[in-house]
């Protein structure tokens, strides 16, 4: 499917950039005519993925988070959130509701569950010591002219 638009953004893994990432993605998806609810869905999912990269991937160490976004002609938004941090040993387990590695009492363990609820598809690729890529996919533009034509 032909790309309408594409972007790459690298930023340091600091909490202040969670809000920045949400604003960037909101702006990027505007050409897909999102509803307010779709905007909020994507902002929430991106916030979860970027927060995971910062607090779990890099766990307080310096590092770079990359956002790679694409909008396709058929109205689909793709956002990859990429870190080169610790990686996840057991992705299936990490995706379970309430699973958290946090020993304190501050993380709900619901990050992936929230992403899955608000996006159409969530793909996770991870390798210990190499990092994690979370791909968030959502059909945003639901107008007839945007949807793929069926013969």
């Amino acid at each position, binding site marked *: 499917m032909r790309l309408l638009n594409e972007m790459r953004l690298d930023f340091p893994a600091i*909490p202040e950039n969670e809000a920045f990432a949400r604003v960037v993605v909101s702006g990027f998806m505007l050409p897909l005519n999102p509803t307010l609810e779709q905007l909020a869905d994507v902002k929430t999912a991106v916030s979860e993925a970027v927060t995971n990269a910062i607090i779990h991937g890099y766990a307080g160490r310096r590092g770079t988070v990359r956002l790679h976004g694409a909008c396709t002609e058929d109205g689909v938004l793709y956002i990859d959130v990429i870190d080169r941090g610790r990686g996840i040993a057991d992705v299936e387990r990490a995706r379970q509701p309430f699973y958290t590695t946090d020993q304190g009492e501050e993380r709900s363990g619901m990050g992936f569950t929230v992403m899955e609820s608000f996006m159409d598809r969530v793909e996770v690729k991870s390798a210990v010591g190499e990092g994690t890529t979370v791909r968030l996919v959502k059909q945003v533009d639901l107008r007839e002219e945007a949807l793929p034509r069926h013969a």
Partner: protein
Amino acid sequence: MFSYELKRGTLTVCLMGELDHSMAARVRSEIDPLIDASGVRRLVFDVGRLEFMDSSGIGLIIGRYKRLSRRGGSVAVAGPDARIDKLFRMCGVYQVVERLA
């Protein structure tokens, strides 16, 4: 952004703007010493003026519930909009936290 008021053992925290990991950490570091020092029995999070919340907000609320319930205190939330209400339901918040209005 947030403000709070302590009155007769009830701490009401009014949250405004965007409640993410960054803001949750700031709220926590300010209210936890107050909770511990002043014998708060009830904590109310007023979420009616929030424009955004992710699961960091759930962590903040459930974390404070654990802290207060250990000494017989309780936590409530007030004013969630439809979106925040959905997030609360999804994460089982209402199993331990009362919803006001």
